[in-house]
């Protein structure tokens, strides 16, 4: 960004927003918005607290297990859908329906079935992220240049080599895009699940802070989650950029 010939770093816009936040907070206009400096202070109180560490542990556990399952199932299903037309036809409609459905509505039903604990959160993460991973994997596998497959076969590649040396790498750009989107949705899933359950993890903390009107802590927690989501998605985006050079020239 340049302004009147001066190059302004991107961080500047963040600084401006923080300043505006600080001013609104200081003016005491809305009781829901404390000054930004109070939030930063709360950040240092929240992070070492046992409540936060417990919540992080359980959230991370649910997120990791749910994502792990979603990656394994999503990628496998996506590959089968992409490689075998019959599977693609059979599953395609269902995967698309679930991918575009408001899954939040299912969480209360999950609670009724699985209870108020870890299983519900894991299944929520899984359901939020698996579909987009499967769909993007399918697209990636379907877009593999058929002459690359023929090339592999003409040099005597086994099915296994064909897959691990050609199909996997050719599908990698779409695969990574699917993983990045799945990661973000999984994170939404774990938080939404916990908010609806409201007795565990981050959901419990949000409930605690807002009920007791601890607004700086409330905002601090939100910033932590925003930051984590951003870092997680940027980490995958880093690998995406690494393969971007061949995404257009397959």
């Amino acid at each position, binding site marked *: 960004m340049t302004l009147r010939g001066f190059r302004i770093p991107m961080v500047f816009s963040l600084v401006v927003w923080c300043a505006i936040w600080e001013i609104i907070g200081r003016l005491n206009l809305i009781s829901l918005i404390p000054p930004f400096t109070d939030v930063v202070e709360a950040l240092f109180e929240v992070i070492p607290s046992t409540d936060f560490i417990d919540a992080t542990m359980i959230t991370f556990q649910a997120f990791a297990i749910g994502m792990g399952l979603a990656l394994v199932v999503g990628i496998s299903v996506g590959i089968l859908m992409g490689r075998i037309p019959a599977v693609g036809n059979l599953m395609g409609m269902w995967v698309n329906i679930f991918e575009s459905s408001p899954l939040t509505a299912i969480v209360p039903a999950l609670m009724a079935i699985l209870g108020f604990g870890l299983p519900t959160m894991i299944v929520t993460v899984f359901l939020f992220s698996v579909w987009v991973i499967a769909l993007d994997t399918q697209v990636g596998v379907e877009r593999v*240049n058929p*002459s690359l497959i023929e*090339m592999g*076969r003409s040099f*005597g590649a086994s099915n296994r080599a064909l897959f691990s040396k050609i199909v996997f790498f*050719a599908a990698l750009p779409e695969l990574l895009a699917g993983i990045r989107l799945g990661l973000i949705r999984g994170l939404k899933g774990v938080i939404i699940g916990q908010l609806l359950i409201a007795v565990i993890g981050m959901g419990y903390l949000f409930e605690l802070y807002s009920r007791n009107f601890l607004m700086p802590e409330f905002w601090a927690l939100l910033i932590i989650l925003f930051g984590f989501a951003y870092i997680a998605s940027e980490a995958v985006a880093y690998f995406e950029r690494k393969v971007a*050079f061949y995404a257009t020239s397959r």
Partner: protein
Amino acid sequence: MTDTPRLSSHGAPGTTGFSQEPAIRVMNLTKEYPGGIRALEGISFDVPKGELTSVIGPSGCGKTTSLKIIAGLVEATSGEVVVNGTQVRGPGPERAFVFQEFALMPWATVLRNVAFGLELRGFGRKERESIAHEYIAKMNLTGFEDAYPHQLSGGMRQRVGLARAMAVDADILLMDEPFASVDEQIRRKFQEDLLRLLSEEKKSVLFVTHSIEEAVYVSDQIVILTRGPAQVSNVVRPGIDRTGDPQNIRRSSAYLDCVESIWVELRNYLEE
């Protein structure tokens, strides 16, 4: 199919002057795609050992299909292909394929692409890379070992594809319009390079092209196919002396007459 093979009409066995078996013998090949579209209607021809045979015909006549059947990549509906005396049931190490669209792995360097055929055949890294280096040098790609395909011109990409096929040291090269995606000037240079390379390494080549000039320039034998569903229309041996300057070959009356006679024959199939 109850037709008798039409080999005898072209006198394929023995035409080379040797009595040895051909590198490839194609017998009564037919191919019907699902939906009843017929690509090939009983084609038969031989590819003599150590020679370059090209297949030419109107576009869409099934040239590439027949090449892919010989490569073992596509299954024939009926008929058979015998390579070095053994019936083809799939791809084999005695055949290497050069693709029209190069078929290079965009995520791999030139070195890895050239060595890839060897990698799939289980050669160790050191061995396959030293062989690859040799063919990279032969193809004038030295200095580009670590480049990626998207950084190369079309002509260089095809040289990588050719180097990959040469590196596995197959007796038979199957080339599917290898120079079709390359511009005209580079194409001519390529044809000359190919002939030079083949004179150094004794290989039998089956070469699919749609260019009459190219076929006559590079081939010992030309198989002319009819419009699809393809049948063998004729087998011609240009018999051009290639010992002299390439420019003189293109101006020689033997070359020009052969181009003309093939054009006259192919024109029948275009004007139907």
